[in-house]
């Protein structure tokens, strides 16, 4: 009898040994801490570098007249582009997801594809055809056409998931269609739209290439110039601090507008799809509008590339160099996408399932890199590796790490929306059916969030493959990616030589963008499947 009692006790003690830590998942904590540390690394070195010549120097640099001009330039551009992207993104998403638009699946793909064209290639496309294009309006137009998919994607996903019952209830309470959209539908997709707008704002603050091409001075352009041409690290880092501040303000703005209010859906009841709105006479108008948008965002840059490939005498290029550049780009991007997605999962899982001040701080930190131009992250990594890890300096790994840090926010956005699809209630049921947390994760959580993980991977891959600024600084000596080789030719006005590189960049990032678009429309049809 007493032997039995002892045997009964043993598993209890063992249970206590591993679960006594309030169920903190160690793997997630390790992953999230690694992500936070990586993100903070460049920022810390940014501050260290800026501080090196003392605060009076920092003050002198910041109080120059040119800083006010840069501030005005950045703010007015950011406001105009973000509002335009929100309108275009939500409008297009509503037309595709909620109306009886002809050829919806085609539009779902076409509207996402501009994401596969780097901003500086869009700039190149327009300016190489119309050299007179420069300044504020050119910058607003080019950036809006480049960035609106960042709102379109989350908005269309959110729209396809809104429960039709909510809208029907609103209609029965006496609201008209427009009022229903404004007060019910828009509220449901609001966090997604704000998340997209945040990405647009932060992307604008970090952009370098496109503004250089249209000769529009923003903070990032000025920083690049100070660093690359003036070799003034202190000035570059000081100006970067202002940029970081602007971006932090954007993050705070999103928070104030309620961007994080929605979390996992309550319960797991099955949702109904909304009926599509017949467009009737408006069909032609909507088709024309979407057609015009696609023509400007997709047609002009692609057409321009085709023109320069055909007429630019690109046959003089040694084909081996373009293949090598392609291989480098693809390998770096895939590695970075895998790392960023893997880091985003624990960050998001902790923030959503073990919500407290620390985990929320880590999640907020994961968004920080969007507030740092690629240039600054590169700068921070270079300073770090030169001092503490010289073997890392100018290695492929350093560039991959830079990409992973830089695009971690994209991965977090993707994983976060995916995580909302898997209710904690489902995981609990899985465990009560006798499976360990790891097994439940593999059989329940992972299948439910897999589409979101794929989306996160694709987003990071696309962005890395078309990254220019950090790559210009960090690429290993003698190695060229598609972006850097393209940039070298473009700055020499060798448009014909540059075009094939841009074409390849568009091609490799178009495939994930296409897959992404296809998956979105599949999702919309399958309803609650994901």
């Amino acid at each position, binding site marked *: 009898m007493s032997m039995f009692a002892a045997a*009964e006790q043993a*598993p*209890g*003690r063992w*249970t*206590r040994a591993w*679960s*006594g830590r309030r169920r903190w998942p160690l793997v997630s904590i390790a992953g999230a801490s690694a992500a936070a540390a990586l993100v903070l690394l460049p920022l810390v070195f940014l501050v260290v570098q800026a501080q090196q010549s003392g605060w009076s120097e920092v003050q002198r640099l910041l109080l120059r007249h040119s800083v006010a001009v840069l501030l005005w330039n950045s703010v007015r551009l950011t406001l105009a582009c973000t509002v335009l992207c929100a309108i275009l993104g939500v409008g297009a998403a509503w037309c595709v997801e909620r109306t009886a638009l002809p050829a919806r699946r085609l539009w779902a793909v076409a509207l996402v594809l501009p994401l596969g064209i780097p901003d500086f290639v869009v700039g190149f496309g327009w300016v190489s055809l119309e050299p007179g294009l420069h300044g504020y309006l050119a910058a607003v137009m080019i950036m809006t056409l480049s960035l609106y998919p960042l709102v379109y994607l989350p908005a269309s996903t959110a729209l396809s998931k809104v429960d039709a019952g909510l809208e029907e209830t609103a209609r029965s309470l006496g609201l008209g269609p427009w009022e229903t959209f404004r007060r019910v539908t828009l509220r449901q997709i609001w966090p997604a739209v704000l998340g997209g707008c945040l990405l647009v704002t932060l992307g604008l603050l970090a952009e370098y290439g496109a503004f250089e091409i249209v000769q529009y001075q923003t903070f990032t352009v000025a920083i690049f110039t100070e660093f690359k041409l003036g070799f003034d690290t202190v000035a570059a880092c000081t100006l970067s601090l202002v940029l970081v501040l602007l971006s932090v303000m954007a993050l705070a703005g999103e928070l104030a507008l309620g961007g994080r209010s929605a979390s996992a859906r309550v*319960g*797991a*009841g*099955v*949702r109904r799809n909304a009926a599509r709105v017949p467009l009737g006479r408006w069909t032609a108008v909507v088709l024309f509008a979407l057609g015009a948008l696609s023509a400007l965002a997709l047609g002009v840059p692609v057409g321009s590339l085709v023109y320069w490939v055909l007429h630019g005498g690109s046959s003089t290029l040694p084909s081996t160099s373009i293949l090598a550049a392609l291989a480098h780009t693809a390998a770096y991007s895939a590695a970075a996408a895998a790392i960023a997605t893997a880091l985003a999962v624990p960050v998001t899982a902790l923030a959503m399932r073990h919500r407290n001040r620390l985990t929320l701080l880590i999640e907020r930190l994961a968004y920080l890199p969007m507030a740092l131009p690629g240039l600054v992250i590169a700068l921070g990594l270079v300073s770090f590796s030169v001092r503490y890890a010289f073997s890392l300096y100018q290695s492929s790994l350093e560039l991959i790490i830079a990409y992973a840090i830089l695009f971690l926010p994209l991965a977090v956005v993707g994983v976060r929306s995916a995580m909302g699809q898997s*209710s904690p*209630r*489902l995981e*609990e*049921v*899985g*465990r*009560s*059916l*006798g*499976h*360990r*947390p790891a097994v*439940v994760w593999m*059989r*329940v959580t992972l*299948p*439910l969030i897999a589409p979101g993980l794929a989306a996160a991977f694709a987003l990071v891959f696309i962005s890395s493959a078309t990254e220019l600024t950090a790559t210009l600084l960090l690429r290993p000596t003698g190695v060229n990616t598609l972006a850097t080789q393209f940039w070298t030719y473009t700055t020499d006005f060798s448009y014909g030589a540059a075009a094939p590189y841009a074409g390849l960049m568009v091609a490799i990032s178009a495939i994930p963008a296409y897959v992404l678009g296809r998956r979105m429309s599949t999702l919309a049809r399958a*309803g*609650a*499947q*994901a």
Partner: protein
Amino acid sequence: MSLLSVKGLWKGYAGQQVLQGLDLEVPAGSLTAVLGLSGCGKTTLLRVIAGFERAERGTVSLAGRTLDDGATFMAPERRRIGYVPQEGALFPHLSVQDNVGFALARSERRGKQVARLLEMVGIAPLATRMPNELSGGEQQRVALARALAPRPDALLLDEPFSSLDASLRSRVREEVHGLLRGQGVTTVLVTHDQEEALSLADTVAVLRDGKIVQQGAPADLYEQPSDERLARFLGAVNLVAADFEDGSARTALGRLPVRGERGAIGRAAGLVMIRPEQLEVRVRSEDTHGAGTSAAGLGGRVEQCRYYGHDALLHIRPEHPGPTDLLLARVHGAQALPVGTEVTVAARGPVTPLE
């Protein structure tokens, strides 16, 4: 022998104590209903038993195994306790049969065991459907089959019928009841519906202010509630002043026997509870008119009549206010009386004294 036992359980969230020293004994093989208002902590109790939450203090044990005593904690997957949440929480990416087979070993997931379970809950033809193609009742049955698949030692049902519409609810309720009877599995069902609890369970435990205030067979609870609040929670009541003498109560409705051991109550006067169906209502004829309180009962007038078909509830204002303001009497549907009818009310004992 008690199979599932909860002793002195404390649990709270963010400074608010939800469960405050709760005790619950669930006999082996029984169906025990935990009855309480929304937000009283019923779901929290189930979640602690299932192992999704930890006890702050107290003990949860199943067939002598300690599951949680505040220090030792057994993971939910090792407890062998099935859980059916409110909306079923089917895995949306798995078909009906894969949901049901989730807990089983890989080789059995599409085997006879799953087919048998689907057959048992009556959804065999839906085996390959996805959850979003099922109705609410069907989802509930899949969730039940899924929870039963690994042959759990106990089963927890969290308001399993509340999302179903009324006609479906009673049918699914009956089927589930029969099913659980057949399986002989120890079951805890939480509900806010007293009719559901009384009609379905072997034992009903009433949860209030973080404690079980009374637990017993449905009839015991209904007839001898521990206090007035509980009496009203379980159904309509009349509270009538009474003088107690040698095991009976002298009331305006006559001398009535006092129920159970509480007849030996050490008080001279107090209130007794009389359920509406214990009152007998007779239309007063001309000759007895004006007699007021007589041996035949208490005179009064129908003030309101709620007709339910199978029965009717009369609100009767006594002629001489004092013992009680308004009497509620449940009568046959056929006996629904028009407002203003003069009646005589008599009571059929026994009555229960209340604090």
